[in-house]
Protein backbone atom coordinates (compact mmCIF):
# COMPACT_ATOMS: atom_id res chain seq x y z
CA UNK A 1 0.00 0.00 0.00
CA UNK A 2 2.91 2.31 0.55
CA UNK A 3 3.13 4.54 -2.47
CA UNK A 4 6.56 5.77 -3.43
CA UNK A 5 7.04 8.94 -5.40
CA UNK A 6 8.34 8.38 -8.89
CA UNK A 7 10.22 11.64 -8.84
CA UNK A 8 11.49 13.68 -5.95
CA UNK A 9 12.86 16.97 -7.18
CA UNK A 10 15.05 19.08 -4.98
CA UNK A 11 12.88 20.98 -2.57
CA UNK A 12 13.17 23.90 -0.24
CA UNK A 13 10.29 22.66 1.85
CA UNK A 14 10.64 23.09 5.55
CA UNK A 15 10.69 19.81 7.43
CA UNK A 16 7.17 19.89 8.79
CA UNK A 17 5.40 21.88 6.05
CA UNK A 18 3.11 19.66 4.00
CA UNK A 19 1.70 22.47 1.87
CA UNK A 20 3.62 25.60 0.90
CA UNK A 21 1.90 28.24 -1.17
CA UNK A 22 3.98 31.22 -2.26
CA UNK A 23 2.74 34.37 -4.00
CA UNK A 24 -0.14 32.48 -5.61
CA UNK A 25 -2.00 34.48 -8.21
CA UNK A 26 -4.76 33.46 -10.55
CA UNK A 27 -7.05 35.08 -13.10
CA UNK A 28 -10.35 34.13 -14.68
CA UNK A 29 -10.08 35.92 -17.99
CA UNK A 30 -9.23 39.53 -17.13
CA UNK A 31 -10.48 39.21 -13.58
CA UNK A 32 -7.86 38.48 -10.93
CA UNK A 33 -9.18 36.14 -8.26
CA UNK A 34 -6.18 35.49 -6.01
CA UNK A 35 -3.57 38.12 -5.17
CA UNK A 36 -0.21 36.78 -4.00
CA UNK A 37 -1.47 34.28 -1.44
CA UNK A 38 1.16 32.81 0.92
CA UNK A 39 0.20 29.87 3.09
CA UNK A 40 1.93 27.02 4.91
CA UNK A 41 0.19 24.01 6.36
CA UNK A 42 2.13 21.97 8.90
CA UNK A 43 2.16 18.20 9.11
CA UNK A 44 -0.71 16.81 11.16
CA UNK A 45 -2.61 20.06 11.57
CA UNK A 46 -6.12 21.01 10.54
CA UNK A 47 -6.01 24.23 8.57
CA UNK A 48 -9.39 25.82 7.95
CA UNK A 49 -9.64 28.30 5.09
CA UNK A 50 -12.50 30.71 5.66
CA UNK A 51 -13.97 33.57 3.73
CA UNK A 52 -17.22 34.92 2.42
CA UNK A 53 -18.71 34.16 -0.97
CA UNK A 54 -16.37 35.21 -3.76
CA UNK A 55 -13.38 35.46 -1.42
CA UNK A 56 -11.44 32.96 -3.52
CA UNK A 57 -11.36 30.11 -1.01
CA UNK A 58 -12.82 27.52 -3.40
CA UNK A 59 -10.44 28.72 -6.12
CA UNK A 60 -7.53 28.31 -3.72
CA UNK A 61 -8.69 24.77 -2.95
CA UNK A 62 -8.94 23.91 -6.65
CA UNK A 63 -5.34 25.04 -7.06
CA UNK A 64 -4.19 23.07 -4.03
CA UNK A 65 -5.68 19.82 -5.34
CA UNK A 66 -4.27 20.43 -8.82
CA UNK A 67 -7.54 21.03 -10.66
CA UNK A 68 -6.39 24.45 -11.87
CA UNK A 69 -3.08 25.98 -12.82
CA UNK A 70 -2.14 29.32 -11.24
CA UNK A 71 -1.08 32.27 -13.37
CA UNK A 72 1.68 33.09 -10.88
CA UNK A 73 3.39 31.76 -7.78
CA UNK A 74 4.12 28.24 -6.63
CA UNK A 75 2.39 25.46 -4.72
CA UNK A 76 4.44 22.69 -3.11
CA UNK A 77 2.58 19.65 -1.85
CA UNK A 78 4.57 17.16 0.22
CA UNK A 79 7.71 18.90 -1.02
CA UNK A 80 6.87 18.71 -4.71
CA UNK A 81 6.28 21.71 -6.93
CA UNK A 82 2.84 21.27 -8.52
CA UNK A 83 3.92 23.29 -11.57
CA UNK A 84 6.84 20.99 -12.23
CA UNK A 85 5.41 17.49 -12.07
CA UNK A 86 5.64 14.92 -14.84
CA UNK A 87 2.47 12.79 -15.21
CA UNK A 88 3.92 9.84 -13.28
CA UNK A 89 5.01 12.02 -10.38
CA UNK A 90 1.60 13.72 -10.39
CA UNK A 91 -0.04 10.31 -10.24
CA UNK A 92 2.16 9.25 -7.33
CA UNK A 93 1.39 12.50 -5.52
CA UNK A 94 -2.34 12.00 -5.97
CA UNK A 95 -2.08 8.63 -4.22
CA UNK A 96 -1.02 10.54 -1.12
CA UNK A 97 -3.94 12.92 -1.06
CA UNK A 98 -7.70 12.66 -0.89
CA UNK A 99 -10.47 15.14 -1.60
CA UNK A 100 -14.00 15.18 -0.19
CA UNK A 101 -16.04 17.41 -2.49
CA UNK A 102 -18.91 19.60 -1.35
CA UNK A 103 -21.63 17.43 -2.89
CA UNK A 104 -19.74 14.18 -2.35
CA UNK A 105 -19.09 13.74 -6.10
CA UNK A 106 -19.65 10.01 -5.82
CA UNK A 107 -20.01 8.31 -9.20
CA UNK A 108 -23.76 7.89 -9.53
CA UNK A 109 -23.50 4.73 -11.65
CA UNK A 110 -21.42 2.90 -9.02
CA UNK A 111 -22.42 1.55 -5.60
CA UNK A 112 -20.86 3.01 -2.45
CA UNK A 113 -18.41 0.10 -2.30
CA UNK A 114 -17.43 0.45 -5.96
CA UNK A 115 -16.93 4.19 -5.47
CA UNK A 116 -14.54 3.56 -2.60
CA UNK A 117 -12.76 0.78 -4.49
CA UNK A 118 -12.17 2.91 -7.57
CA UNK A 119 -8.92 4.58 -6.40
CA UNK A 120 -7.61 1.18 -5.27
CA UNK A 121 -8.53 -0.43 -8.58
CA UNK A 122 -6.85 2.32 -10.57
CA UNK A 123 -3.63 2.59 -8.57
CA UNK A 124 -2.93 -0.84 -7.11
CA UNK A 125 -3.18 -4.46 -8.13
CA UNK A 126 -5.22 -5.87 -5.28
CA UNK A 127 -7.57 -8.84 -5.28
CA UNK A 128 -11.28 -8.29 -4.69
CA UNK A 129 -11.21 -9.78 -1.18
CA UNK A 130 -8.51 -7.37 -0.01
CA UNK A 131 -10.38 -4.44 -1.53
CA UNK A 132 -13.63 -5.58 0.13
CA UNK A 133 -11.87 -5.63 3.51
CA UNK A 134 -10.40 -2.18 2.94
CA UNK A 135 -13.78 -0.80 1.92
CA UNK A 136 -15.44 -2.25 5.04
CA UNK A 137 -12.65 -0.79 7.20
CA UNK A 138 -13.08 2.69 5.80
CA UNK A 139 -16.86 2.50 6.02
CA UNK A 140 -16.44 1.59 9.72
CA UNK A 141 -14.26 4.69 10.18
CA UNK A 142 -16.97 6.95 8.76
CA UNK A 143 -19.81 5.09 10.54
CA UNK A 144 -21.34 3.75 7.35
CA UNK A 145 -20.82 0.04 7.93
CA UNK A 146 -23.38 -2.02 6.06
CA UNK A 147 -24.18 0.62 3.46
CA UNK A 148 -21.67 -0.60 0.89
CA UNK A 149 -24.25 -2.01 -1.53
CA UNK A 150 -26.35 1.15 -1.74
CA UNK A 151 -26.22 3.50 -4.69
CA UNK A 152 -25.33 7.18 -4.05
CA UNK A 153 -28.89 8.24 -4.91
CA UNK A 154 -30.14 6.16 -1.96
CA UNK A 155 -28.00 8.02 0.61
CA UNK A 156 -28.91 11.08 2.68
CA UNK A 157 -26.79 14.25 2.44
CA UNK A 158 -24.75 13.41 5.52
CA UNK A 159 -24.22 9.79 4.45
CA UNK A 160 -23.16 10.96 1.00
CA UNK A 161 -20.48 13.18 2.51
CA UNK A 162 -19.25 10.43 4.82
CA UNK A 163 -19.06 8.00 1.89
CA UNK A 164 -17.03 10.63 0.04
CA UNK A 165 -14.69 10.81 3.05
CA UNK A 166 -14.32 7.02 2.96
CA UNK A 167 -13.28 7.26 -0.71
CA UNK A 168 -10.90 10.12 0.09
CA UNK A 169 -9.08 8.11 2.79
CA UNK A 170 -9.12 4.68 1.18
CA UNK A 171 -5.50 4.96 -0.01
CA UNK A 172 -4.36 6.07 3.47
CA UNK A 173 -3.38 9.54 2.26
CA UNK A 174 -1.12 11.94 4.13
CA UNK A 175 -3.29 14.88 3.16
CA UNK A 176 -7.06 15.27 2.86
CA UNK A 177 -8.98 18.28 1.56
CA UNK A 178 -12.58 19.02 2.48
CA UNK A 179 -14.70 21.43 0.46
CA UNK A 180 -17.54 22.89 2.56
CA UNK A 181 -18.14 19.71 4.61
CA UNK A 182 -21.03 21.27 6.56
CA UNK A 183 -22.87 22.78 3.62
CA UNK A 184 -26.49 21.68 3.40
CA UNK A 185 -26.37 19.59 6.60
CA UNK A 186 -28.39 20.03 9.78
CA UNK A 187 -26.38 21.05 12.90
CA UNK A 188 -26.31 17.54 14.39
CA UNK A 189 -25.05 15.85 11.22
CA UNK A 190 -22.65 18.72 10.65
CA UNK A 191 -21.23 18.31 14.15
CA UNK A 192 -20.81 14.57 13.60
CA UNK A 193 -18.84 15.31 10.44
CA UNK A 194 -16.63 17.72 12.41
CA UNK A 195 -15.95 14.93 14.90
CA UNK A 196 -15.04 12.63 12.02
CA UNK A 197 -12.53 15.19 10.70
CA UNK A 198 -10.95 15.46 14.15
CA UNK A 199 -10.83 11.67 14.41
CA UNK A 200 -9.04 11.40 11.08
CA UNK A 201 -6.36 13.80 12.27
CA UNK A 202 -5.98 12.22 15.71
CA UNK A 203 -6.22 8.53 14.80
CA UNK A 204 -4.57 8.52 11.39
CA UNK A 205 -2.27 11.53 11.63
CA UNK A 206 -3.65 13.00 8.42
CA UNK A 207 -3.00 16.64 7.58
CA UNK A 208 -6.33 18.22 6.78
CA UNK A 209 -7.33 21.35 4.88
CA UNK A 210 -10.96 22.40 5.19
CA UNK A 211 -12.62 25.13 3.17
CA UNK A 212 -15.74 26.40 4.88
CA UNK A 213 -17.74 29.47 5.74
CA UNK A 214 -19.27 27.85 8.84
CA UNK A 215 -17.75 29.75 11.77
CA UNK A 216 -18.86 27.30 14.46
CA UNK A 217 -17.47 24.33 12.61
CA UNK A 218 -14.19 26.14 11.91
CA UNK A 219 -13.69 27.01 15.58
CA UNK A 220 -14.39 23.42 16.59
CA UNK A 221 -11.96 21.65 14.27
CA UNK A 222 -9.24 24.12 13.32
CA UNK A 223 -5.69 24.21 14.65
CA UNK A 224 -5.21 27.35 12.58
CA UNK A 225 -7.52 29.43 10.46
CA UNK A 226 -6.65 31.28 7.26
CA UNK A 227 -9.03 34.11 6.34
CA UNK A 228 -9.36 35.03 2.69
CA UNK A 229 -10.98 38.27 1.69
CA UNK A 230 -11.45 39.39 -1.91
CA UNK A 231 -8.63 37.11 -3.04
CA UNK A 232 -6.15 38.28 -0.42
CA UNK A 233 -5.04 36.43 2.68
CA UNK A 234 -6.15 38.58 5.58
CA UNK A 235 -4.80 36.47 8.44
CA UNK A 236 -3.44 33.03 9.31
CA UNK A 237 -3.58 32.40 13.02
CA UNK A 238 -4.76 30.19 15.86
CA UNK A 239 -8.46 29.88 16.62
CA UNK A 240 -8.00 31.96 19.77
CA UNK A 241 -6.28 34.83 17.96
CA UNK A 242 -8.76 34.81 15.08
CA UNK A 243 -11.64 34.80 17.55
CA UNK A 244 -10.15 37.83 19.33
CA UNK A 245 -9.04 39.63 16.18
CA UNK A 246 -9.61 43.39 16.09
CA UNK A 247 -9.59 43.42 12.28
CA UNK A 248 -12.98 44.76 11.22
CA UNK A 249 -13.30 42.55 8.14
CA UNK A 250 -12.52 39.44 10.18
CA UNK A 251 -15.00 40.53 12.84
CA UNK A 252 -17.62 41.10 10.14
CA UNK A 253 -17.03 37.61 8.75
CA UNK A 254 -17.19 35.95 12.17
CA UNK A 255 -20.25 37.94 13.22
CA UNK A 256 -21.94 37.47 9.83
CA UNK A 257 -22.21 41.19 9.20
CA UNK A 258 -22.89 41.92 5.54
CA UNK A 259 -20.62 44.44 3.89
CA UNK A 260 -21.66 46.79 1.15
CA UNK A 261 -20.29 45.57 -2.17
CA UNK A 262 -17.68 48.02 -3.44
CA UNK A 263 -18.67 48.73 -7.02
CA UNK A 264 -16.46 50.50 -9.46
CA UNK A 265 -18.58 53.09 -11.28
CA UNK A 266 -16.92 52.52 -14.67
CA UNK A 267 -17.26 48.76 -14.40
CA UNK A 268 -20.90 49.05 -13.33
CA UNK A 269 -21.63 51.30 -16.34
CA UNK A 270 -19.83 48.85 -18.61
CA UNK A 271 -21.89 45.98 -17.15
CA UNK A 272 -25.13 47.85 -17.83
CA UNK A 273 -24.32 49.00 -21.35
CA UNK A 274 -22.32 45.97 -22.48
CA UNK A 275 -19.54 48.29 -23.70
CA UNK A 276 -16.02 47.48 -22.55
CA UNK A 277 -14.47 50.14 -20.30
CA UNK A 278 -11.99 52.56 -21.88
CA UNK A 279 -8.32 51.51 -21.56
CA UNK A 280 -7.62 54.27 -19.06
CA UNK A 281 -10.25 52.87 -16.74
CA UNK A 282 -8.78 50.35 -14.37
CA UNK A 283 -10.34 47.05 -13.33
CA UNK A 284 -11.33 46.95 -9.66
CA UNK A 285 -8.46 44.64 -8.75
CA UNK A 286 -5.88 47.07 -10.17
CA UNK A 287 -6.77 49.68 -7.63
Amino acid at each position, binding site marked *: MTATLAKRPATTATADAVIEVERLETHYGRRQVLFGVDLKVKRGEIMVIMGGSGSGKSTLLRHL*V*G*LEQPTGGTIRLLGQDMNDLDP*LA*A*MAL*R*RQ*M*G*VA*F*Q*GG*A*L*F*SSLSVAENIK*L*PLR*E*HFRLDEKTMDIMVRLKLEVVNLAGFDALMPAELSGGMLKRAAVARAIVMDPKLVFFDEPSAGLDPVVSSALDDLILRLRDAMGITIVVVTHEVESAFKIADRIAILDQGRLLAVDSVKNIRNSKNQRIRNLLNRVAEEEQIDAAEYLSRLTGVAPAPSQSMPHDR
Partner: protein
Amino acid sequence: MRIFETVGRGTTRAIDEVGFAATLLGQSAFWLTFGARRRQPVRSGAIFAQMVQMGTGALPIATLLSATIGIMLAIQSIHTLRLFGAESFAYVGIGLSITREFSPLIMGILLAGRSGSAIAARLSTMTINQEVDALRVIGVSPVRFLVAPALVGLLFVLPALTMWANLVGLAAAGLFVSGSLDLSFAAFVSDTIRILTANDIIHGLGKSVLFALLIVLVGVVNGASVKGGAEGVGAATTSAVVQGIAAIIITDMLFAFMVTL
Protein backbone atom coordinates in the same frame (compact mmCIF):
# COMPACT_ATOMS: atom_id res chain seq x y z
CA MET B 1 -21.54 45.34 -36.45
CA ARG B 2 -23.21 42.90 -34.05
CA ILE B 3 -23.66 40.31 -36.80
CA PHE B 4 -19.89 40.26 -37.43
CA GLU B 5 -19.29 39.90 -33.71
CA THR B 6 -21.77 37.00 -33.52
CA VAL B 7 -20.25 35.27 -36.56
CA GLY B 8 -16.75 35.85 -35.20
CA ARG B 9 -17.59 34.44 -31.78
CA GLY B 10 -19.36 31.45 -33.35
CA THR B 11 -16.37 30.74 -35.60
CA THR B 12 -13.93 30.99 -32.71
CA ARG B 13 -16.06 28.65 -30.62
CA ALA B 14 -16.33 26.17 -33.50
CA ILE B 15 -12.55 26.17 -34.02
CA ASP B 16 -12.09 25.76 -30.29
CA GLU B 17 -14.45 22.77 -30.26
CA VAL B 18 -12.78 21.13 -33.25
CA GLY B 19 -9.43 21.55 -31.50
CA PHE B 20 -10.86 20.03 -28.33
CA ALA B 21 -12.27 17.09 -30.30
CA ALA B 22 -8.87 16.52 -31.94
CA THR B 23 -7.21 16.60 -28.51
CA LEU B 24 -9.72 14.06 -27.19
CA LEU B 25 -9.05 11.79 -30.14
CA GLY B 26 -5.29 12.08 -29.66
CA GLN B 27 -5.52 11.44 -25.93
CA SER B 28 -7.80 8.44 -26.46
CA ALA B 29 -5.31 7.00 -28.94
CA PHE B 30 -2.52 7.64 -26.42
CA TRP B 31 -4.29 5.81 -23.58
CA LEU B 32 -5.32 2.94 -25.84
CA THR B 33 -1.72 2.53 -27.03
CA PHE B 34 0.34 3.28 -23.93
CA GLY B 35 -2.18 2.98 -21.08
CA ALA B 36 -1.36 -0.63 -20.21
CA ARG B 37 2.37 0.12 -20.18
CA ARG B 38 1.74 2.91 -17.67
CA ARG B 39 -0.49 0.65 -15.57
CA GLN B 40 -3.45 2.80 -16.60
CA PRO B 41 -5.22 0.58 -19.15
CA VAL B 42 -8.46 1.35 -20.91
CA ARG B 43 -10.41 -1.45 -19.29
CA SER B 44 -11.96 -4.05 -21.57
CA GLY B 45 -14.87 -4.39 -19.12
CA ALA B 46 -15.74 -0.72 -19.61
CA ILE B 47 -15.54 -1.11 -23.41
CA PHE B 48 -17.75 -4.20 -23.28
CA ALA B 49 -20.29 -2.41 -21.06
CA GLN B 50 -20.44 0.46 -23.56
CA MET B 51 -20.88 -1.99 -26.44
CA VAL B 52 -23.76 -3.73 -24.69
CA GLN B 53 -25.38 -0.44 -23.73
CA MET B 54 -25.06 1.15 -27.17
CA GLY B 55 -25.45 -1.95 -29.34
CA THR B 56 -27.84 -4.38 -27.69
CA GLY B 57 -30.19 -1.60 -26.62
CA ALA B 58 -30.36 -0.24 -30.17
CA LEU B 59 -30.92 -3.60 -31.85
CA PRO B 60 -34.76 -3.70 -31.86
CA ILE B 61 -35.19 -0.17 -33.25
CA ALA B 62 -32.28 -0.72 -35.68
CA THR B 63 -34.02 -3.85 -37.00
CA LEU B 64 -37.35 -2.07 -37.38
CA LEU B 65 -35.82 0.93 -39.18
CA SER B 66 -33.70 -1.23 -41.51
CA ALA B 67 -36.68 -3.35 -42.52
CA THR B 68 -38.77 -0.23 -43.10
CA ILE B 69 -36.06 1.40 -45.21
CA GLY B 70 -35.63 -1.81 -47.23
CA ILE B 71 -39.35 -2.00 -47.99
CA MET B 72 -39.55 1.73 -48.75
CA LEU B 73 -36.65 1.46 -51.20
CA ALA B 74 -38.25 -1.55 -52.84
CA ILE B 75 -41.54 0.33 -53.31
CA GLN B 76 -39.80 3.36 -54.81
CA SER B 77 -37.49 1.30 -57.03
CA ILE B 78 -40.32 -0.78 -58.47
CA HIS B 79 -42.42 2.34 -59.01
CA THR B 80 -39.61 4.21 -60.79
CA LEU B 81 -38.33 1.32 -62.89
CA ARG B 82 -41.87 0.34 -63.94
CA LEU B 83 -41.92 3.55 -66.03
CA PHE B 84 -39.25 1.93 -68.19
CA GLY B 85 -40.54 -1.61 -67.86
CA ALA B 86 -37.37 -2.51 -65.97
CA GLU B 87 -38.77 -3.33 -62.52
CA SER B 88 -37.07 -6.72 -62.56
CA PHE B 89 -33.79 -4.78 -62.11
CA ALA B 90 -34.98 -3.25 -58.84
CA TYR B 91 -32.40 -5.31 -56.93
CA VAL B 92 -29.56 -3.22 -58.44
CA GLY B 93 -30.72 0.07 -56.92
CA ILE B 94 -31.86 -1.55 -53.70
CA GLY B 95 -28.63 -3.48 -53.12
CA LEU B 96 -26.32 -0.57 -53.81
CA SER B 97 -28.40 2.03 -51.98
CA ILE B 98 -28.78 -0.02 -48.82
CA THR B 99 -25.16 -1.10 -48.46
CA ARG B 100 -23.46 2.10 -49.62
CA GLU B 101 -25.85 4.72 -48.27
CA PHE B 102 -28.89 3.89 -46.21
CA SER B 103 -27.56 1.39 -43.67
CA PRO B 104 -24.62 3.51 -42.45
CA LEU B 105 -26.62 6.74 -42.63
CA ILE B 106 -29.72 5.50 -40.79
CA MET B 107 -27.67 3.65 -38.18
CA GLY B 108 -25.48 6.73 -37.74
CA ILE B 109 -28.47 9.00 -37.22
CA LEU B 110 -30.07 6.46 -34.89
CA LEU B 111 -26.97 6.23 -32.70
CA ALA B 112 -26.38 9.99 -32.79
CA GLY B 113 -29.83 10.34 -31.26
CA ARG B 114 -29.48 7.44 -28.87
CA SER B 115 -25.83 7.15 -27.84
CA GLY B 116 -24.57 10.66 -28.70
CA SER B 117 -27.22 12.17 -26.44
CA ALA B 118 -26.51 9.62 -23.71
CA ILE B 119 -22.78 10.39 -23.81
CA ALA B 120 -23.42 14.16 -23.64
CA ALA B 121 -25.97 13.80 -20.83
CA ARG B 122 -23.73 11.52 -18.80
CA LEU B 123 -20.63 13.67 -19.17
CA SER B 124 -22.42 16.95 -18.53
CA THR B 125 -24.12 15.57 -15.41
CA MET B 126 -20.79 14.21 -14.17
CA THR B 127 -19.12 17.57 -14.83
CA ILE B 128 -21.81 19.48 -12.91
CA ASN B 129 -21.72 17.01 -10.00
CA GLN B 130 -17.90 17.34 -9.83
CA GLU B 131 -17.52 13.64 -10.67
CA VAL B 132 -15.04 14.54 -13.43
CA ASP B 133 -13.07 16.62 -10.90
CA ALA B 134 -13.18 13.65 -8.53
CA LEU B 135 -11.68 11.42 -11.24
CA ARG B 136 -8.87 13.92 -11.78
CA VAL B 137 -7.96 14.20 -8.11
CA ILE B 138 -8.00 10.42 -7.77
CA GLY B 139 -5.44 10.44 -10.58
CA VAL B 140 -7.65 8.93 -13.24
CA SER B 141 -7.67 10.52 -16.68
CA PRO B 142 -11.31 11.27 -17.58
CA VAL B 143 -10.41 10.63 -21.23
CA ARG B 144 -9.11 7.14 -20.42
CA PHE B 145 -11.98 6.36 -18.06
CA LEU B 146 -14.95 7.89 -19.89
CA VAL B 147 -14.10 8.77 -23.48
CA ALA B 148 -11.87 5.96 -24.75
CA PRO B 149 -14.26 3.11 -23.78
CA ALA B 150 -17.18 4.86 -25.49
CA LEU B 151 -15.05 5.54 -28.57
CA VAL B 152 -13.81 1.97 -28.94
CA GLY B 153 -17.25 0.58 -28.09
CA LEU B 154 -18.98 2.60 -30.80
CA LEU B 155 -16.22 1.85 -33.32
CA PHE B 156 -17.27 -1.81 -33.00
CA VAL B 157 -21.00 -1.29 -32.52
CA LEU B 158 -21.79 1.05 -35.42
CA PRO B 159 -20.16 -1.06 -38.17
CA ALA B 160 -21.76 -4.16 -36.62
CA LEU B 161 -25.19 -2.50 -36.63
CA THR B 162 -24.56 -1.34 -40.19
CA MET B 163 -23.89 -4.93 -41.28
CA TRP B 164 -27.02 -6.04 -39.45
CA ALA B 165 -28.99 -3.25 -41.17
CA ASN B 166 -27.63 -4.46 -44.53
CA LEU B 167 -28.93 -7.97 -43.89
CA VAL B 168 -32.31 -6.91 -42.50
CA GLY B 169 -32.87 -4.17 -45.12
CA LEU B 170 -32.01 -6.43 -48.05
CA ALA B 171 -34.09 -9.29 -46.63
CA ALA B 172 -37.13 -7.03 -46.15
CA ALA B 173 -36.70 -5.55 -49.63
CA GLY B 174 -36.29 -9.04 -51.07
CA LEU B 175 -39.49 -10.26 -49.45
CA PHE B 176 -41.40 -7.25 -50.78
CA VAL B 177 -39.94 -7.51 -54.28
CA SER B 178 -40.57 -11.25 -54.48
CA GLY B 179 -44.17 -10.69 -53.37
CA SER B 180 -44.75 -7.82 -55.79
CA LEU B 181 -42.99 -9.04 -58.93
CA ASP B 182 -43.74 -12.71 -58.87
CA LEU B 183 -40.02 -13.34 -58.36
CA SER B 184 -38.59 -15.84 -55.91
CA PHE B 185 -36.77 -14.61 -52.81
CA ALA B 186 -33.84 -16.88 -53.70
CA ALA B 187 -33.58 -15.22 -57.11
CA PHE B 188 -33.53 -11.78 -55.48
CA VAL B 189 -30.78 -12.87 -53.09
CA SER B 190 -28.78 -14.44 -55.90
CA ASP B 191 -29.09 -11.31 -58.11
CA THR B 192 -28.18 -9.02 -55.21
CA ILE B 193 -25.09 -11.04 -54.30
CA ARG B 194 -24.05 -10.97 -57.96
CA ILE B 195 -24.34 -7.20 -58.22
CA LEU B 196 -22.72 -6.32 -54.89
CA THR B 197 -18.96 -6.18 -54.54
CA ALA B 198 -16.81 -6.17 -51.40
CA ASN B 199 -16.10 -2.53 -52.17
CA ASP B 200 -19.79 -1.63 -51.69
CA ILE B 201 -19.83 -3.22 -48.24
CA ILE B 202 -16.50 -1.62 -47.27
CA HIS B 203 -17.78 1.76 -48.51
CA GLY B 204 -20.69 1.57 -46.06
CA LEU B 205 -18.58 0.24 -43.20
CA GLY B 206 -15.95 2.94 -43.77
CA LYS B 207 -18.65 5.57 -43.39
CA SER B 208 -19.92 3.94 -40.22
CA VAL B 209 -16.44 4.10 -38.67
CA LEU B 210 -16.26 7.83 -39.40
CA PHE B 211 -19.78 8.33 -38.04
CA ALA B 212 -18.85 6.51 -34.82
CA LEU B 213 -15.91 8.87 -34.28
CA LEU B 214 -18.13 11.89 -34.93
CA ILE B 215 -20.92 10.74 -32.60
CA VAL B 216 -18.59 10.16 -29.63
CA LEU B 217 -16.49 13.29 -30.13
CA VAL B 218 -19.49 15.57 -30.64
CA GLY B 219 -21.18 14.04 -27.57
CA VAL B 220 -18.09 14.44 -25.39
CA VAL B 221 -17.31 17.99 -26.55
CA ASN B 222 -20.87 19.10 -25.80
CA GLY B 223 -21.01 17.22 -22.50
CA ALA B 224 -17.68 18.57 -21.26
CA SER B 225 -18.53 22.16 -22.24
CA VAL B 226 -21.69 22.21 -20.10
CA LYS B 227 -22.55 25.39 -18.25
CA GLY B 228 -25.19 25.79 -15.55
CA GLY B 229 -27.37 23.09 -14.02
CA ALA B 230 -30.16 20.93 -15.41
CA GLU B 231 -30.83 23.46 -18.17
CA GLY B 232 -27.19 23.15 -19.26
CA VAL B 233 -27.47 19.35 -19.41
CA GLY B 234 -30.55 19.67 -21.63
CA ALA B 235 -28.82 22.16 -23.92
CA ALA B 236 -25.68 20.00 -24.17
CA THR B 237 -27.76 16.92 -25.01
CA THR B 238 -29.77 18.73 -27.68
CA SER B 239 -26.62 20.20 -29.21
CA ALA B 240 -24.97 16.78 -29.26
CA VAL B 241 -27.86 15.29 -31.24
CA VAL B 242 -28.28 18.19 -33.67
CA GLN B 243 -24.54 18.64 -34.30
CA GLY B 244 -24.01 14.88 -34.48
CA ILE B 245 -26.68 14.38 -37.14
CA ALA B 246 -25.51 17.42 -39.11
CA ALA B 247 -21.90 16.20 -38.98
CA ILE B 248 -22.95 12.73 -40.14
CA ILE B 249 -24.93 13.99 -43.14
CA ILE B 250 -22.21 16.42 -44.24
CA THR B 251 -19.50 13.78 -43.81
CA ASP B 252 -21.64 11.28 -45.72
CA MET B 253 -21.82 13.63 -48.69
CA LEU B 254 -18.10 14.43 -48.58
CA PHE B 255 -17.20 10.76 -48.26
CA ALA B 256 -19.45 9.79 -51.16
CA PHE B 257 -18.01 12.63 -53.27
CA MET B 258 -14.39 11.75 -52.57
CA VAL B 259 -14.69 7.98 -52.80
CA THR B 260 -17.32 7.55 -55.52
CA LEU B 261 -16.56 10.25 -58.08
